[in-house]
């Protein structure tokens, strides 16, 4: 392909991907309440955002669920990856197939099936049902990221530890984990961003008592656009992008392999 054409295509793609983010950021600094009119630079929507109790509560649900789900799902996912990696091929195959279900299944189907599941067991909808739902899909992603890293483990070290009488927790903590650290970090980061990103599964599993940011934005967007949502969106975009570039920097300086870097 000719060079200018390549440039135009890549440039066009980046413009397409970042245009809405740029527009959002610009509007968040607009003094006017109306979209079409620019009335000068202002930080008042950021002020309105920080004094909005509804948003503060939604932020608490989003970050609380994302942090807890990431920690729990990473622990379960890493242990499961280690166990499955050393288990019989047949068991590994079946469990891995089931593990792919939450990843391949459209969110909508996962969401309504979990909602039915919670109704079936008479669970009280709220923070805990939303948290459990997030842990369920996060674990699946953690396993998909960590499992390939298990291949890099020097099995002689595991055998040596066993010969010297180490129990499974010592083997995991002292021999395996140090060798798959990068994968664990990548898995945790993916779980965190998946939680922050999610709307559909939260929507069906949160009930009326818990409203995270996605759910709040959904109901606000249906009622009409509020300028402080632009401020919120800008902060979230900037926060996530900084987080990713920061983690990527760490990975870069550690000269990790390319796959690890792709994730963050």
């Amino acid at each position, binding site marked *: 392909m000719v060079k200018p054409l390549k440039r135009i295509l*890549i440039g066009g793609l980046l413009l397409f991907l970042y245009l809405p983010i740029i*527009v959002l950021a610009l509007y968040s600094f607009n003094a006017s309440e109306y979209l079409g009119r620019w009335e000068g630079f202002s930080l008042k929507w950021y002020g309105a955002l920080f004094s909005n109790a509804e948003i503060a509560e939604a932020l608490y649900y989003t970050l609380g669920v994302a942090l807890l789900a990431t920690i729990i799902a990473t622990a379960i996912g890493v242990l*499961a990856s280690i166990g499955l990696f050393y288990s019989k091929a047949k068991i590994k195959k079946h469990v891995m197939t089931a593990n792919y279900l939450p990843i391949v299944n459209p969110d909508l189907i996962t969401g309504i099936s979990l909602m039915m599941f919670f109704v079936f067991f008479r669970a009280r909808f709220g923070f805990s049902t939303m948290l459990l739902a997030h842990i369920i899909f996060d674990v699946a992603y953690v396993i998909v990221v960590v499992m390939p890293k298990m291949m890099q483990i020097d099995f002689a070290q595991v055998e040596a530890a066993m010969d010297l009488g180490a129990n499974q927790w010592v083997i995991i903590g002292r021999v395996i984990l140090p060798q798959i650290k990068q994968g664990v970090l990548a898995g945790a980061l993916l779980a965190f961003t998946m939680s*922050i990103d999610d*709307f559909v599964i939260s929507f069906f599993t949160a009930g009326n008592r818990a409203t995270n940011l996605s759910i709040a934005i959904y109901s606000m*967007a249906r009622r009409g656009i509020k300028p402080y949502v632009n401020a919120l*969106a800008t902060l979230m975009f900037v926060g996530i992008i900084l987080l990713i570039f920061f983690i990527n920097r760490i990975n870069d300086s550690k000269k990790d392999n390319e796959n690890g870097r792709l994730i963050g």
Partner: protein
Amino acid sequence: MKKFDGIVYFYGIWVAVLVVLPLLILVLLSFTSGDIYDLSSLTLTLDNYKAALDPSYIGVMMHSLWLAFITNVICLVIGYPVAYIITGLNPRIRNTMVLLILAPMWSNFLLRTYSWMLVLGNNGPINSVLESIGLGTVQLMYNNFGVILGMVYNFLPFMILPIYLSLTRIDNALVEAARDLGATSKDVFFKVKLPLSMPGVFSGTTLVFLPAITTFVISRLLGGGQYVLIGNLIEHKFMVQNDWQVGAAIAVIVAIILLVVLGVLRKLARGRLELSLW
């Protein structure tokens, strides 16, 4: 290894109860009538499927399939050349490009979709420009255009990444061998690179088509209130009408269609279908 058997049992039960059982409950429920809060009142029936196959619902289904198909074609037409160009860049720029393409995906899905409401709106930047050059405002959302654009925006990286990964995996020795045997650049592309990157195309198609067919957020925000896709219909049955059993039946029908699509793509990809970007 015996030492880790306990963990495997734990995770096996975890998956069975928290992943497989909810799906089974959904399927079972679609065959029942009665009050789902009172299990003894439930009776087996096929009525939900009769209701789900109502002609107007089939129309909605066809429209959803059509929009998902168009979205997929657009993603492929943009995504393949982009993936191909990125593969040819030097490794350092290449990684940055991949990161730039993925970064918006790591924010929040709802914010990404919401942001297009601002861009496409009657007071948005595009219409302001059109207005100022005397072309007047154009309805850019609350129609098919808005919905397809929202879907392409949200799902395009899922097309680019698998194609990019399959292109980077092509053994350069094959390309060199083809060149040595006198192949032109065109031959190398059509006879070596394109066939070897097809698994990426099929993986990308899976990753775009599945979420596109079931979305209800994009159609709600960029399609407007009366705009209905199959995802909106299911959501409405569950969250508004409380008609869970018919909703479950529609969901099962959608899942069967998706399984068929997945099966065909898997066959085409000859077992090299990757169902996750990660």
